[in-house]
């Protein structure tokens, strides 16, 4: 479904009839989703609904058995080489950060620039520092991931993804593993990023964040997309009982 709040032209991500099974478990069922360039999509839903799996499919960390994914009209066929090239256009931020513990914060950000984009060390360092500055952790550049807090780790992870200049950023529950006091610092970075015109697909339970920045909210349950629409519509006046039930739970738990 097209977003109503912004003008969008190119299609960034198109998922067509995706079906995925883990052994016998049908994890994604007939998923169709289109994300326009510059659009911000928030996917929410109960745990086990397949939202993380869906996001991981987009940059091919999961193998789907049926359907087709197109990134900027390029088909992401089930081929390794193709997925490597397309992954360079897609940044990914994980729930558990997955920083490289044997490398300093700065090296975490420059590794891809030097070895994938073939940049010189000096240039790579400069570029990484700009992004570390932007997410507010420049003073930690020489530290190692084991020495910094969860919120700082996640901001470094965002910088590491952004430094590769992706056209799309995928965020898989970026604040779920954080202490309540650290969620805000990461959300602030994400809100800042949302304002910059980056295409984002974000799995999150932060309904407040969804209300504030999402163009489109996708609600998933049991491996299906239950409903899709502008944030105020899906979160404000949901059309389906399942959505309403979920929102009631989330709001009563104070997550909104």
């Amino acid at each position: 479904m097209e977003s109503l709040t912004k003008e969008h032209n190119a299609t960034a991500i198109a998922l067509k009839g995706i079906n995925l099974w883990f052994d016998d478990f049908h994890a994604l069922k007939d998923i169709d989703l289109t994300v326009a360039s510059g659009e911000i999509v928030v996917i929410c839903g109960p745990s086990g609904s397949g939202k993380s799996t869906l996001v991981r499919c987009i940059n091919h960390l999961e193998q789907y058995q049926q359907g087709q994914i197109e990134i900027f009209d390029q088909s992401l066929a089930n081929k390794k080489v193709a997925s490597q090239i397309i992954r360079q256009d897609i940044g990914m931020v994980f729930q558990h950060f997955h920083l490289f513990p044997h490398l300093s914060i700065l090296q975490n950000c420059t590794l891809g620039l030097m070895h994938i984009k073939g940049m010189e060390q000096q240039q790579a360092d400069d570029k990484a520092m700009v992004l570390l500055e932007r997410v507010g952790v420049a003073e930690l550049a020489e530290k190692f991931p084991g020495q910094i807090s969860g919120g700082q780790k996640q901001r470094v992870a965002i910088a590491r993804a952004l430094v590769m200049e992706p056209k799309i950023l995928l965020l898989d529950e970026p604040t779920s593993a954080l202490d309540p006091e650290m969620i805000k610092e990461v959300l602030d970075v994400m809100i800042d990023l949302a304002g910059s015109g980056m295409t984002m697909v974000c799995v999150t339970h932060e309904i407040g964040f969804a209300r504030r920045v999402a163009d489109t909210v996708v609600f998933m349950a049991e491996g299906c997309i239950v409903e899709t629409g502008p944030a105020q519509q899906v979160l404000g006046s949901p059309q389906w009982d399942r959505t309403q039930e979920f929102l009631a739970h989330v709001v009563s738990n104070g997550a909104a």
Partner: protein
Amino acid sequence: MTQQSDHNKLKTFVPIPARPAPGASNSWLAHLRQQYFSTVLSSALTVTTLFLFYLLMSPLVDWALVKAVWSAADRKECYSVSPDGACWAGVIHWFNNIIYGRYPSPEIWRINLVFVALVLWASPIFINRFPHKVMVFLSLWLAFPGLASYLLLGGEHGLLTQLWFGIACAILTIIVLALIWLVTGRELAPGHSALTRLKLPLLALTIGACLGQQWLILEAVETTRWGGLFLTLVIASVAIMMALPIGILLALGRRSELPVIKYLAITFIELVRSVPLITVLFMAVTMLPFFLPNSVELDKLGQVLVAISLFAGAYMAENVRGGLQAIAVGQTEAAKSLGMNYWQNMIFIVLPQALRLMIPNIVTSFISTLKDTTLVSIIGLFDILLMAKNMAIDKKWLDLHTEPLVLIASIFFVLCYGMSQYSLYLERKLQWSH
């Protein structure tokens, strides 16, 4: 935490200042008392242990030092001087043979030269301030054998071997110069200009070393004359240097998604691991020639080197695989989502972490490889153990077994304990905080 007492007025939270932990003392005397004499039982245990230690050690010291004979013409003389002391005279008499085997005496300087070159070449790896450690290590791995085989084997060589030797000489010169700069206090900036200025002389040196061999042909020394500690170290270092790359490739192969590679790796690893090393050695030396055409003449040492390297590699593979399995899948996913391919992920992300985790196991493998090399004495290579046996059948030193074995045990202890201590140091140095 601040306590909300009243809706209008909040108390200001001031944390309790930190205090030192109780009972901490810097005095070594206090430390000694606390560790060894804290209670009656603890004191009794300490004293008993010291007494047992004395009971065990005093006869040994008596035999090895107090009553020992250091110079004698033969074993009979040892006996007549001191019947229950060690006869070190025999070991001293045979010392050169225990260290160098039956290498011709006038050529022994070549072994010493190779040893000195090895120490110089490897020393940058142990000096913290020295840059480009990985390059030094790789050059040692790739080029040093050129220098070593030229000097140790002697004889005439083909053009490629000469070039290999020349390159090795040039690299060694660079390293020695860099060491001198480091010692004299000059810093080595990356891309140091001094080295670029040296490009031409180094090239000349390489070519010179190649051509020089035309005139300077060293006397050929057959590998059958290699022996003693020297041979033990040659076999052990080749096996250790080869085991790690072989092990890494086999471990990656075993975890490969391609069934052919996967099952080949599994078959090789399981086959080699299920067979004793001595069997592998016998197979390599006695059975392999049956399968080869008569014209192919195999060097016994070469066969042994290949066999031990593959054997150690198969064991190493399982160590490396253990390390690979300990690395969370998330690391690979993060690397993939940056756009890395399989090898980039392995080289920059997974292997550095996996190998670091496995340092204790890897070094344990190295140590057992070093000790395993003594098995080559059974198939007739004159390693340090067989030299000692030979000494005991020398008419002058008939049946003198204990003394050379004590010497060999001490040598092995120094080497193995050194390796184990270095691995502990390496673990601490490469630690990253979690």
